[in-house]
């Protein structure tokens, strides 16, 4: 038991070498905030593109053309079967051989719009390599989520719409997709939460996003752990804000399913996502009896 007590004491006295001053100093630093903004931009663009790719893949897989079906399956097989870190590194390493690294780097749109606080410029070649890898990878996962969402809608819905004279695409847009969207939203929110953190892998390719910025500042000050805490605080803040938005979107889409008498979740429940999984479920169970 003595060993445990000694160890617990060292846990408590961590501050002998963990300098909190660095955390307070760098959490609100312009360089870190810029890194967090880059992370958000990267996540939002990649998630949007990934979702579009996922939708496209669904229709290719469900389509009549065999070659498209096989290609879509192969795409999903490949991008889900190789690590995201490998894909990011591969695109970055590939770019110079395609002679596009230098032209991209020469454009430098981020410095032009005032992103000059980080440990260096945000180069477009790193940025695009990261976007490409993140969205192509995300597309493979979104394809599965979209498939689950659309396939969950009873085929009778599509048949009924067609019997009313709707074309396949109109029935999809007006009848099936709006219902499927409600099913897709929770896992989509989950994917975006993952995306916010997966962008950290872009630190491999000299992209000054949140983690790389924190790491460079931390190593230069011999305060690596302190700056990892700073980065973590920002990732937590970003995912918390997203959880809040996700809750709003889910309640809006689920409005007709909600029990009017059910208590509205508290702000902290909405922010941290506690109890969100129960929304709509508690009333759905007795309604079936």
């Amino acid at each position: 038991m003595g060993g445990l007590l000694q160890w617990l004491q060292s846990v408590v006295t961590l501050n002998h070498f963990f300098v909190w001053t660095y955390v307070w100093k760098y959490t609100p630093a312009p360089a870190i905030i810029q890194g967090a903004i880059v992370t958000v931009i990267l996540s939002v663009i990649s998630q949007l593109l990934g979702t579009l790719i996922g939708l496209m893949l669904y229709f290719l897989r469900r389509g009549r053309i065999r070659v498209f079906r096989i290609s879509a399956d192969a795409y999903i097989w490949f991008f889900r079967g190789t690590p995201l870190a490998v894909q990011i590194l591969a695109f970055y390493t590939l770019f110079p051989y395609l002679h596009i690294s230098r032209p991209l780097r020469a454009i430098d749109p981020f410095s032009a719009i005032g992103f000059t606080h980080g440990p260096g410029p945000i180069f477009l070649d790193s940025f695009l390599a990261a976007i490409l890898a993140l969205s192509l990878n995300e597309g493979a996962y979104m394809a599965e989520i979209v498939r689950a969402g659309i396939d969950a809608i009873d085929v009778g819905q599509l048949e009924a719409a067609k019997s009313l004279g709707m074309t396949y695409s109109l029935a999809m847009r007006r009848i099936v997709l709006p219902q499927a969207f409600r099913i897709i939203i929770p896992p989509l929110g989950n994917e975006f939460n993952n995306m916010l953190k997966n962008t950290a892998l872009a630190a491999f390719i000299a992209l000054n996003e949140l983690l790389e910025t924190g790491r460079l500042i931390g190593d230069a000050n011999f305060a690596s752990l302190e700056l990892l805490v700073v980065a973590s605080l920002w990732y937590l803040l970003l995912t918390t804000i997203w959880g809040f938005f996700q809750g709003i979107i889910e309640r809006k889409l689920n409005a007709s399913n909600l029990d009017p008498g059910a208590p509205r979740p508290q702000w902290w429940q909405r922010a941290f996502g506690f109890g969100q999984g129960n929304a709509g479920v508690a009333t759905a169970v007795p309604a079936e009896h």
Partner: protein
Amino acid sequence: MTPASLRSRPNIRRAVTVGVVGAAMGLSLLLSACGTTSTTTTTGNNANCPSSATVASWHLANPGKLTIASDTTYAPAEFADPNNVGSFIGYDMDLAREFAKRLCLEPNIIKADFGTIITDVAGPPLGQQRYDMSISSFTINSTRQQKVDMIPYFTAGESIMVATGNPQHITSIDSMCGKTIAVQDNTVEKSEIDDANGTGDKSSGQAPVCKDNKIKELHFTSENDVILQVVNGNADASYQDQPVTDYYISKNPGKTESGGITVSPAPQGIVMRKDNAPLETAITNALQAMRSDGTYLKILTNWGVQKLAYPPLP
């Protein structure tokens, strides 16, 4: 109204509590086990070997081993043997093994990211450090000396590596302005580029000559990645220690050449904790003994870097 699955939650919580307590008890057993093994330090059978009391005063990270961190991407100082990537070679590595041998310890060289080495040597409390010391081409400067002690053992200048023919005419920091330069994280070379851009902490003393036409700096944790950017044409030049530039040029003839020496040789140091004087004394004495009996110069000569000895040869 409440589904059965919700009512059963307290049981789950109890199960979690039991699990946590169990894990803590297991951990304490493990820790006390570690405590008993660390007291039995083995001493070599050599008569010159230090007593077990002396070894105990070194507070080694791993009993019986001299644990040395090195960023093994920096040929010819420290790098993975191309024919056997599990073994680390280079003059720093030969020195490291010689130190362990003279201290009657087993050499335990661990590959680490250059930027995190000093933190991992000096950060944790004594006895809990990840590495006992580091030999990894650390140029001695005041920023580093605030955190660790540095025993001078070698000298190296800084130089530029460019593509053959030097198409961008990069021969100095001034001529780097506006160009793409690859550099390793947390090196003195990176500090100079940051200061030249006016974005650094001004620790290198480099004037902000590229303030208005910034150097496009590509930074990587591994020097291998830095070199790759010049070889595949992604960067106009890379900036590192001169022995490293020369080594890669000799290994890739016709692809790259030296763009010029920017900084003349300056002392590099072995990184030691400030609060582990007994080990630092032992290493300093061992280095002195290696100088006296010729081992030190022999190691440098094997790698063709004897001219960079510290103190300089007469």
